[in-house]
């Protein structure tokens, strides 16, 4: 290939195949940068213009080696990689009151589930708030000079009334990720019902189902009677009661939705038994990504209803360090408790 620009853009395309978000604008920048530098610094020209996340450096290095075979490369020698360590918060859940509310979803008859749907519609989910950038008038807080000055015009420039303002607060977004694979079959119907009830609280909230692949069901669940919504969602999800690839599903959630803002600062609730058939290491990496975006990660694992349960399954163990609240969600009482606990 003689034309250098053609070669550099081919390189950009190869990076795109590896999953890097390399648009035409970036390739243009890369070409400009390469033109400004000596050929030996080609590696760094690309690193500064085509890479925008630490995780992408590995893929960039691979493609670069394949493309330019060590030319234009002044990399420092290999160094050990970074590990992320997060504190883990354990929260115990239990309150034995009413029969139905405490009966495990897995033992409920279809009639009982229908009754539960009505009860669920009344569950209130309080999510943490976040401070917004703008302020609003308040009874106390920081002095509001602007309004104080305005008001002072009524009293001939004398600031008699002093006014205050404070930060506005907004509810954080809640994102539900529901495992509908075979091993969760006893619980998934009830959890989707819960999602239906939750989505009515706030129209910005979202729900997804996953087994081997991810399906967004927000629109299907957002309106109507629970039964109708459930049927519509079921029609949308193609891998109902199949295997579980949590890592890959999470990755496609992050790539397609989470990273572009859906998971940012949100409370993400994952409902799954953690029986991952994919690579636990992959799940760990995706959980690390999620934990950097989300405000809090809640993992509901119905297996926890058994007191002997310990999160030893490889997938669950890999994900646990990134989980802020680990609860069971196997019956209505535990979901209610969760709803009041998030705020």
């Amino acid at each position: 290939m003689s034309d250098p620009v053609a070669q550099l853009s081919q390189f950009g395309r190869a990076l795109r195949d590896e999953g890097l978000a390399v648009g035409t604008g970036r390739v243009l920048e890369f070409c400009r940068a390469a033109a400004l530098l000596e050929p030996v610094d080609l590696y760094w020209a690309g690193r500064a213009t085509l890479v925008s996340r630490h995780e992408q450096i590995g893929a960039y290095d691979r493609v670069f080696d394949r493309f330019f075979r060590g030319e234009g490369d002044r990399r420092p020698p290999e160094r050990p990689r970074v590990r992320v360590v997060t504190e883990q918060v354990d929260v115990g859940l239990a309150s034995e009151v009413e029969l139905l509310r405490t009966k495990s979803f897995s033992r409920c008859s279809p009639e009982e589930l229908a009754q539960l749907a009505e009860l669920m519609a009344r569950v209130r989910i309080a999510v943490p708030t976040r401070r917004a950038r703008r302020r609003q008038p308040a009874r106390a807080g920081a002095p509001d000079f602007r309004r104080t000055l305005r008001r002072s015009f009524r009293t001939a420039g004398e600031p008699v009334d002093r006014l205050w303002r404070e930060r506005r607060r907004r509810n954080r977004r809640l994102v539900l990720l529901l495992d509908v694979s075979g091993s969760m079959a006893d619980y998934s119907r009830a959890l989707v019902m819960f999602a239906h009830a939750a989505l009515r609280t706030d129209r910005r909230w979202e729900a997804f189902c996953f087994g081997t692949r991810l399906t967004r069901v927000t629109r299907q669940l957002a309106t109507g009677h629970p039964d109708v919504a459930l049927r519509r969602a079921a029609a949308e999800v193609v891998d109902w009661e199949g295997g579980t690839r949590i890592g890959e599903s999470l990755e496609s959630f992050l790539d397609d939705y989470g990273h572009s803002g859906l998971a940012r600062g949100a409370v993400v609730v994952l409902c799954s038994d953690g029986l991952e058939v994919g690579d636990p290491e992959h799940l760990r990496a995706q959980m690390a990504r999620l934990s950097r975006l989300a405000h809090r990660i809640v993992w509901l694992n119905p297996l926890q209803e058994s007191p002997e349960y310990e999160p030893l399954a490889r997938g669950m163990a890999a994900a646990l360090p990134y989980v802020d609240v680990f609860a069971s969600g196997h019956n209505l009482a535990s979901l209610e408790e969760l709803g009041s606990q998030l705020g």
Partner: protein
Amino acid sequence: MRFGSVEEVEQAFAGHSYLPDRGLSTAVFLALAMKRPLLLEGEAGVGKTEVGKTLARILEAELIRLQCYEGIDAAQALYEWDYSRQLLYARALQAGELDPGQRVAELYGRDFLLERPLLRAVRIGAGAVLLIDELDRADDEFEAFLLEILDAYTVTVPELGTIAAAEPPAVVITSNRTRELHDALKRRCLYHWIDYPDLEREVEIVRLRAPGVSERLARSVAGAVARLRELDLVKRPGVAEAIDWARALTLLDAETADGDAARATIGWAVKNREDLQRVEPELPELLA
């Protein structure tokens, strides 16, 4: 001042006691040549902030630092009217018999405008290095707002008009990656991940930053710190820790980083109780 080549950048930084690796000098060179903000990420203590400070010294430009924190807003980053002064002035006006029409215009004049870092950087333009430190701590909304400024380098104050930079300032943004920054912002920046330096470079850096430290001690400290970094620690020691530790050992007249002096000063390198417990049993090996 503009650099002619990557080597010039390297030399200029070295002349101000900062030893960048090839990647960092290339990124700085490109950022200046292409007039793009430079986004620096890396572990704490690898010298991200120092890049901005050093660059300002090299360019003989004014360093304008915007330290980000949760809840930072436009009033703290851009400008604010000095309302209390305006109030006082308005009251003084009532006492006097001055021409009111003109005085009202004066109330929103430059005298009453409190300039914050971003406005100042836009006003000074090429004569400034704008260091936006720890952007990951600020909220999403602030990032979007910053994006607007970095796009056009203009600020509009409704009462005064638009202030635009003739030539954009050099911009260095740092992030500790406690959260992911928005892709839109990243797209406008050149990106560089600052890694821990290799052993030789770290020895040089320690000697350059702490002139009283002997070659032997610097080497021994750099070795011990490199071994510490390979352990599974919550907070791995950065270059800043290595420099402080070497200084401390010099004050105790230690010749190498082993023995009682090193044991007594390990807190300079490891600053977390769990990490100390983790390191304790391996100390003899680490400080070999």
